[in-house]
């Protein structure tokens, strides 16, 4: 599944699970 396809299914703007190795993703996880 491409990132665009994933973003059509999962709201990656609110839940950046694809970016967990970045600060953005990690701070989401910490929340």
């Amino acid at each position: 599944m491409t990132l665009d396809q994933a973003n059509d299914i999962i709201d990656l703007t609110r839940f950046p699970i694809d970016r967990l190795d970045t600060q953005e993703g990690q701070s989401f996880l910490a929340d």
Partner: protein
Amino acid sequence: MKDGAVVLDGFMRPDAVQQVISNVEPSMKDAFYCSNEHNVYLINDDPDFDNEHPRNRKVYSDKGIVAYDQIPAENLLHQVYGWQALKDFIAQLMGSPEIFPYTDPLGSVNININNDGRQLGWHYDNSKFVTTLMLQPASDGGVYEYVPWLRSEEDQNFDGLDKVLKGKSDEVQILKQEAGSFVLFMGKYTAHRVTPSHGDPRLVAVLSYGPEPGKTLTKETRQLFYGRTQ
């Protein structure tokens, strides 16, 4: 995770939820419905305790299940289930280096249907965690109740469980979910149930992952919940 659960409301977009439901709706008429009495531990009774002891006391569950092989191949659930980023996310939540989708022909992904008063009685899961996507809450009832960390590996806390089963516990909490909610639930030590559902059916997709590749259900479990072994 202190309450034994992570709930992400709005995780799956509303359009995607509707696509999942519309796609699988024709298969729902072929869902397998089961009902059974069981103890909270979902294992055989312990003869060292009497039948009314919380270890052996019976509760009632009934539900319908659409099996993995009944969910059309193009259903979005299949894409979500295998998406590496989701697997990595769940592994991070669990503090595991990696998790793996089940390779079960019926149970890897399934859709639970609770309607017409169907319910899940109090129980502990046998697996460490379960991940679900709420597709449609019941219009009446179908409330997910749980008691965080009611037991531990060292202490079964039968007194606490007895109060829960008698409806006298003040520790019971409600896990609110809406259509599109993602839930990771630590059900092995956290007792939980779903109250009877009425009106619009409660539809929940269960995504099963394990700590090692190749995990499957037992044939007995398949027979019980799917009415067939393959």
